[in-house]
Structure formats: structure tokens, C-alpha cells
């Protein structure tokens, strides 16, 4: 009787499951960000949908500190609103040469980081659900016992 290791296949399946789980978790964050961006940053009178449509994610990666996925945007002004900025002259106030300058105060409206933190539980749930499905467990079937040479697979 010879022994055959299934470890390479299991490792490959676990990697695929992790990637799928990360995509599911990222989708939770993306959806929350899009929901919160839909109303715009100020009055909502100037919403074009550009910010919402620019929300995207990277491919899952395996880095030195573990697997990760990025959720972000390529719009610089989203970054300015998230971290805060002082508006340039003429933005949100009359420009030079007008009768009044108007207040040019510090502006900030956080959307991305609160979305990341507030959806922690949902991210984890999404990851676990998808991971279990990929590994053959979870709702809908699949063996609930670890495979063993002594116990026949009853699926």
C-alpha cells in the first residue's frame, strides 16, 4: 500500500479559496463606499457619478505579511476629501477679483475608512462564506468531517 499526498491539491484549493474570499470581502467594502459616495461630498447638487464608478479593487495578492486585496480609486480628489484639504481659491468660494472672497476653510468628508471599519463583520462573514464554499463545506452540502484514509467519503 502506498501513500499519496493530496497536500499540493489542498494548498492550491486553499489559495483559490482565499482569493475568492478576499474578492467577496472587498465587494462588501466597495458596495459600502459606493453607497456613501452616491450622495456626493457636499450638497449633492453636483454629483456626476464619476466617484462611484471609479471605485475599484485590485487582484488578490500574497505578500510577505499575508494575502491581501486593495480597494481604491484613481481619482485624486477622492483622496483629498478623505484626508482633508484646503480648497484652492475659486473653489467653493468666489475667486480673486470678485467682491467677496468667502470662507476658504478646511474641508473633509471621510467615506472610505469609515466604510472599511464599519463593515468588518460583514467582510469577515463574506470571506468565511466564500472560503467554505470553495473548500467544499458550508451550507448546501459538502463533507463536515476531515478526510481520513479510515473513513470513507460519504458525500
Amino acid at each position, binding site marked *: 500500500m502506498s501513500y499519496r499526498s493530496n497536500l499540493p491539491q489542498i494548498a492550491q484549493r486553499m489559495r483559490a479559496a482565499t482569493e475568492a474570499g478576499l474578492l467577496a470581502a472587498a465587494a462588501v467594502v466597495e458596495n459600502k463606499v459606493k453607497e456613501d459616495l452616491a450622495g456626493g461630498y457636499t450638497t449633492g447638487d453636483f454629483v456626476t457619478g464619476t466617484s462611484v464608478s471609479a471605485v475599484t479593487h485590485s487582484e488578490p495578492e500574497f505578500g510577505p505579511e499575508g494575502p491581501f486585496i486593495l480597494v481604491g480609486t484613481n481619482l485624486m480628489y477622492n483622496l*483629498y476629501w478623505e484626508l482633508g484639504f484646503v480648497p*484652492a481659491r475659486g473653489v467653493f468660494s468666489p475667486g480673486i477679483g470678485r467682491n467677496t472672497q468667502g470662507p476658504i476653510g*478646511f474641508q473633509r468628508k471621510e467615506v472610505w475608512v469609515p466604510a472599511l471599519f464599519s463593515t468588518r463583520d460583514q467582510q469577515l462573514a463574506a470571506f468565511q462564506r466564500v472560503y467554505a464554499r470553495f473548500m467544499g463545506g458550508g451550507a448546501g452540502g459538502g463533507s463536515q468531517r476531515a478526510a481520513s484514509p479510515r473513513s470513507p467519503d460519504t458525500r
Partner: protein
Amino acid sequence: MSTASWTGVLKIIRHRLLTFTPVGGGPTLRTLIGATASGSGADGKLFLNQAPDNLTGFWGVLRVIDAPIQGADGGFMIKATAELILYSLSRQTHAQVEAMADTVMQAWRKWSYGEAGGTIVSSEITNRFTIPYASDPANREVVAIRLLLPFRCTPIFLTRYAAA
């Protein structure tokens, strides 16, 4: 100042950042950032949560952006992340703002605070980022450097219930 309140925790952190003297005798953050004539910035223009709108020169804003209670320690430890952003309204002073950030990183390194019933322990800084104000709607003259300062805290307002 004590960990009997969350504001107290922030004030302890603020005091550490403002008064730390780098090895070799360099200036403190309080010296670099300046102070207001009166009010909450009188001991250094590092404000908690929000800064006044009429500031000039340099200033900083310190706040906590995440404070989950995690771990198997009875729910007495908060693993928080503080956000510090250092500002200047003049691009010419960029190097000085970077120097302030250097001082903050030194102050945060391997720092701990302890009192009867309360502790604060810093963790390694996870992010230092110079915000690239390069286009509208941002004023390009503004310099802002953001640092994320993780720490663990067992505040008195939680640990006092340890025996309950």
C-alpha cells in the same frame, strides 16, 4: 491627565508627542510647531480632533480613527489607531513639516505610559504619508503629512470593573 477618560488618553499621547526630546538634543515638536498665545494650543499647536479655522504657520490634528476592543483579555484592552496630520500653509516649509514627522516617529518608538490601573503602549507606526495636493480642488500650497499611530490601551475607565 490620566486614562480615566478617553480624552485623557489622547491628552497623554499629545503630551508625549509635544514634549519628547530626540536623542542628541534636537528640538521638541512643541518648539517646531509653535504655540498659540492662549487657548488649547498654548502649549503647542497640536489639537485634538479639530483645529481652529484661523491658524497660520504650522499645526497638527490628533484623533483616534479606530478603536476596536479585541482579544481574550476580558474586554479591557482597546487596540486603537490614532491619526496625526501635520500641516503648513506654505509649500516652502515642506522640509520643516517633514522634520516634525521625524520627531513624532521617534517619540512614538517603543513608548509606554503606566499608572495605577491604566496603561498605554505604542506599536510601530504603520503609515507615514505626504498628501499629494497637486490638483483642484486642493490648494497646492498646503503641506500635510499624515501618520498612523497604533497603540494598545487599558484605560482606568474599563479596568476599574475588573473585579466586578
